Each structure stands twice: as structure tokens, then as C-alpha cells.
């Protein structure tokens, strides 16, 4: 950060003045490159304003590409806009301007029903607070996205049982969340995120509500799933968690401050 210049997805900034106008806008160059690449997610000049008795800008002209099979962490302090970015990519929210394309589908212009379908089939969410249906068993929770995707009951159950054994919960299929430990619940949530074989898994502070050992196990599971070809976008404020990814996108005040290559150090 002190080395004079800062390269973001939007261009080259003088480190001292960032955020602000880039010295060289590289948008056109980047677009030409990524259009040909195997892109799972494209965030293109996205801004998001909220009207909370005065306009609050959560994201300001952010662009970011995730290629298939990549593992990206988003870091930033709370209020930086990293959750907003996750919600936009996950189709839970729509940008005020700019485009979000997930696996070829434009989320920003999709209807509410189409976004629901994208959330169900293209994206798998893993939340800090697990967000399991309290009265459904583990296997029913895992099968829930398949319900909305129109699978029949037998196939849903087969798929859910096999995913639960993949995450090491073969013996817990019929337990409700209250009967499971935090780590087990998060593994159910991960299995649920995988159920529709989505193009992208979005994890929002997945280790925030579990102890260190359990957190490590969850991150190991992510590594295994990444190795198996899944694309990950992980939001965290913990450095050691972010370092499990291939690259770290630093977000602050609604801007991407820097993109850090974990193996190669900061750009």
C-alpha cells in the first residue's frame, strides 16, 4: 500500500489518493480479456445506493470477475460494502447501476422470479448463522433448494443423503438443527449450498459462529470442495480465513482497494 501505486480492477491509482479517479482506466482492456475467459461471475461497474433518510452509497462503481473454479476471499471492515457485494452476486439484491452476470445470466435485469431461480440453482449460500430451517431435519434442509427446483421427493432425498455423507454427516440425516453442534450445522448448510450443483458458492463469515478448530475443519472442507472444482467467494474479516483463498479482494468504503494474490503477495 505504500509502494506508490495501487492497481484495482478499475485501473491504476496513486496509493495516497485512493479512492478516487484512476490514473489509467483499464476497464475496456479488462473487459476484452475477461469476455474470452471462463468467467463464472462478472461484476461490471456496479453501484448500490440505499435510501435510509438520505442516500447511503454501499458500493461505488465496483467491477470484479470470478473465473470458474476460483477461490476468492473478500475482506474489509464492517460497513465496507462486502456484504452488499455478496448479496448482489447472490441475487438477493439488485444493483442501482451496473451489471452482475452469474453463469451467463444477468442478475441485474432479471425479474424477481428469475432471481429466485438463480439463487436456487446457480448460487449456494453459506451463512455465518447457518440459517437452517429449525423444524426441518438435516436431510430436509439439504433438500430444500431441490424442492423449489422441482425435484421429486425420492430423488431429493437420495441427493441430500449423499451430500450429507460427503460432508461427514451420514449418521445425522434425521436430526433437526437444534440437535446438532455448530460445526455440524454449518456442514449441513454447506451440503445444502451444494445441493443444486451451483456455479458458485457464497460464504458469508462461515467460521464466525464456530470455535477455531471447527472453523479450521470447515475451511478444510472448503479446500476439498474447491479442489473438486467448485467456485468459492468467501466474505470474512479474519486474515487467516481469507488466506485460505487464492486471492483476497480488499473492500473499503464501497470500493475495491486492492486485489491480493495470496501466493504472490499484494499487487
Amino acid at each position, binding site marked *: 500500500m505504500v509502494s506508490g501505486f495501487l492497481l484495482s480492477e478499475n485501473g491504476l491509482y496513486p496509493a495516497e489518493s485512493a479512492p478516487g479517479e484512476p490514473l489509467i482506466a483499464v476497464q475496456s482492456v479488462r473487459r476484452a480479456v475477461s469476455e474470452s475467459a471462463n468467467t463464472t461471475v462478472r461484476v461490471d461497474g456496479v453501484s448500490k445506493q440505499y435510501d435510509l433518510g438520505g442516500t447511503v452509497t454501499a458500493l461505488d462503481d465496483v467491477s470484479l470477475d470470478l473465473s470458474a473454479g476460483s477461490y476468492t476471499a473478500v475482506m474489509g471492515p464492517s460497513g465496507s460494502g462486502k456484504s452488499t457485494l455478496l448479496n448482489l452476486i447472490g441475487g438477493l439484491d439488485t444493483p442501482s447501476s451496473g451489471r452482475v452476470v452469474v453463469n451467463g445470466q444477468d442478475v441485474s435485469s432479471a425479474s424477481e422470479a428469475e432471481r429466485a431461480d438463480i*439463487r*436456487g440453482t446457480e448460487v449456494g449460500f453459506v451463512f455465518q448463522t447457518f*440459517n437452517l430451517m429449525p423444524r426441518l431435519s438435516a436431510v430436509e434442509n439439504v433438500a430444500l433448494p431441490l424442492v423449489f427446483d422441482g425435484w421429486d421427493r425420492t430423488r431429493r432425498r437420495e441427493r441430500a443423503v449423499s451430500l450429507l455423507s460427503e460432508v461427514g454427516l451420514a449418521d445425522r440425516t434425521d436430526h433437526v438443527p437444534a440437535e446438532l453442534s455448530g460445526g455440524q450445522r454449518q456442514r449441513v448448510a454447506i451440503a445444502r449450498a451444494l445441493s443444486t450443483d451451483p456455479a458458485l458458492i457464497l460464504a458469508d463469515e462461515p467460521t464466525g459462529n464456530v470455535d477455531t478448530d471447527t472453523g479450521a475443519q470447515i475451511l478444510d472442507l472448503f479446500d476439498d470442495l474447491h479442489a473438486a472444482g467448485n467456485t468459492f467467494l468467501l466474505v470474512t474479516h479474519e486474515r487467516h480465513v481469507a488466506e485460505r483463498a487464492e486471492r483476497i479482494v480488499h473492500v473499503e468504503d464501497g470500493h475495491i482497494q486492492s486485489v491480493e494474490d495470496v501466493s504472490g503477495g499484494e499487487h
Partner: protein
Amino acid sequence: MDTGESVRITLRSIRAHKLRSALTVVGVVIGIASVITFATFGASVEAEIVGDIETSNAGNIYVFGTPSGDDDFDRTLQPVFTEYDVQQLEGIQGVQAVLPRGIVQTQSIQHGNRTLARQQVTATRPASITDGVLVEGRSFEADEEAVVVNERMAGSFSQNLTTGERLTITMPDGSERNVTVVGVVNGTRGEVPVSEFARQPRVYVPIDPFYDSVVESPSAGVRQRAYPQVTLVVDPRAIPETQSAIQAYISGDADARSLSADDTELVARSGNDFVEEISDVIERITRFVTGIAVIALVVGAIGIANVMLVSVTERTREIGIMKAVGARNRDVMQVFLVEAALLGTIGSLLGVPLGLVVGYGATRYAEVAFSLAPLWMALAVGVGVLVGVVAGLYPAWRAARVDPIDALRHE
């Protein structure tokens, strides 16, 4: 989203709030049960009365005068149908018997040491007392000094009156007639159906020698007996034609027409006319009372709406989860509508038998035969489900509109 899954989710939710769901269902049960109770009771009363009239009076045509203004009911009892009219009516094709009926005032009727004051007795022809109505004994002969009493009258004296016993009838002029009871009946042939409502003690006497209301017949030119009401027994296969012929006679050349005030309408009503009129009245009352019971159902519906709104608020986070994993707005709506409809359905399924039991109790109490109102039952179940759906619409719509981001943050 398949219905089976939404039902499963709903059942879990209902099971998680057993007491709350049960109380909501009770609201619907009370509503449905009241509707069923009143509808069933109304149908039973109607069937009972209509059944009575239909079995005993199918081929009867009742002829009487009715004032166009309802204020002057006395005039319906004016003796205007003369013997001449009776003969003319007997001549109409399809008429099998004519049963004139008159009222004889008495000072009192005495049996043993018991005297009943200010009684009326009914004068009629022997043919009015048929085997079908006789409980014991026989009919009187024309011009016999004998009477037939109904069961109510038989029970009016300290010892039950039976055939062969004697009554003393004191006429308005103070003269006394000693008569023999020759029969006990439970009604008479040709009685106007509405009189069955008032099962009063009655004594039936032969026209001769008891009945002496006379007027001068305009057609015959002599003084003749005249009756306020005449019943005609007609060929059951030709009721409409015969009824028209009778109506034509009494509103045309009949003595009764000349003897009646201009604003008195002379009518020939069939048993079916009475059945229709009575059914109409009972149905109207039933509908009115059932309508009041519907208020209970509306209260039940409000209960469902209330609980569903609470449920939506409580399950905001679940709605967020469902939306995050791909539920469309209509899927969310479906989950809540199914829950509301299920509460309504359970309510009606429990309410129908309860209503039938209470309705049965009411018919026992009122001493009428129990009859089902299947249409109302089907309607009640349908309405119960509908009530649930309608009551659930707004809460479900609210649920569907929940913003998933807010919902997932919701504690």
C-alpha cells in the same frame, strides 16, 4: 413447489404451535358447527312439517276466503260457502269428495266432574274421519248425536276420554246436548295444513244437527247452511286442472262470491301450495338464523388471519432462508396459504360432526325427526377451506413480499 412439501412444512409449523393452532381451529369449529346446527335443524323441521302435509293432504284443495288487507283476519271465517256451492263443487270433474267445515260455538263441554268452558267444536261430514286418522272407535254418522275427539281433547279430562263415554255440550242458548264419544282421532281428513301447528284440543260433530249457520243462497233463493271453509278431495292425477276449475267456479258464479265483501279474495289452494308456502317460510327463517351463525364463522376467519400474521412475523427468518435457497414469492405464499387452508379444513372437518351432533340434539328436544342437509354440509366444508384461504391471503402476501436480506438479518 409441490403441495406435499408445503403441507409437510405446514404440519411441522402447526405441531410447533399446538395450543395456538388448536385455539384457532376451535374458532372455525364453532363457526362451522353453528352453521351446520341451524341448517340441519331447519331442514329437519321443514322435512317434518312438509312430510306431514304431503302424506295426509296430497290430493286436497282448500277453499276459503282471504281478505286482501291482512288487518281483517275475522273475515276469513265468514260462512259464505252455501250448500248450493257445495253441490256445485261436487259436480266439478275430478272432485271425489267435498268436506265442508264449520265452527259451532259452545258455552262449555263437560265430562264427569270436569267442565271446559268456552269451547268451539268443528262441524263436518262423516267422511272427514277416515280410518287413516282414527286411533280408536269409528266416525259418527250424519245426523247422529255423537262426537269424535282428538287425542289432545281426550287427554284434557281427569280420566282419559275413550269411546263409549258421554259428554255434555252446553250450547250458547243454554240448551244441553248429551253426546257419545264414538271415536278418537289424531287429526282429520281435509284439515287445513296450518292448523297442524296448533294441536289444540278439538271436538268434531256431525253438521246435522249441530251446525246451524244459515244464509239465504242467492242462487237457490232459500236459506241454507253456509260454511267458512270447504275442503275438496280431488283426483291426485288431475290436481292442476281440477284446482283451476274450482277456482273458476268460486271466483265466478258461486254464492260465496256474492256473499263475500268485494275485497275478500276466494282462493282454492292445493296441499302443494301450502307445502311450498310453509317450506318458503321455514327456509327463510333457517337462512336468517344460519346467516347469524355465519358471523361466528367470520370470527373464526379473523382468528386464522390473526394467527397467520403472527406466524409470518415469527417466521420471517425462515422466509428469508427459503428465498435464499430459491423459493419464489409464490412458493412462500403457497406455504402460508396451505397453512391457513389447513387450519380452515381441520376446523370444518371437526365442525361438521359437532354441528350434526348438536343439531341432532336440537331435533330430539323439539321432537322432530332428524334429517340431514347434505348441501349445507358440503357448503360448510367448502366455506371452511375458503375461509382459511381468504383469511390467509393477506398474511401470505405479506410473507411473499418479505425482503430476503432483511429477513436473514431478522432475529
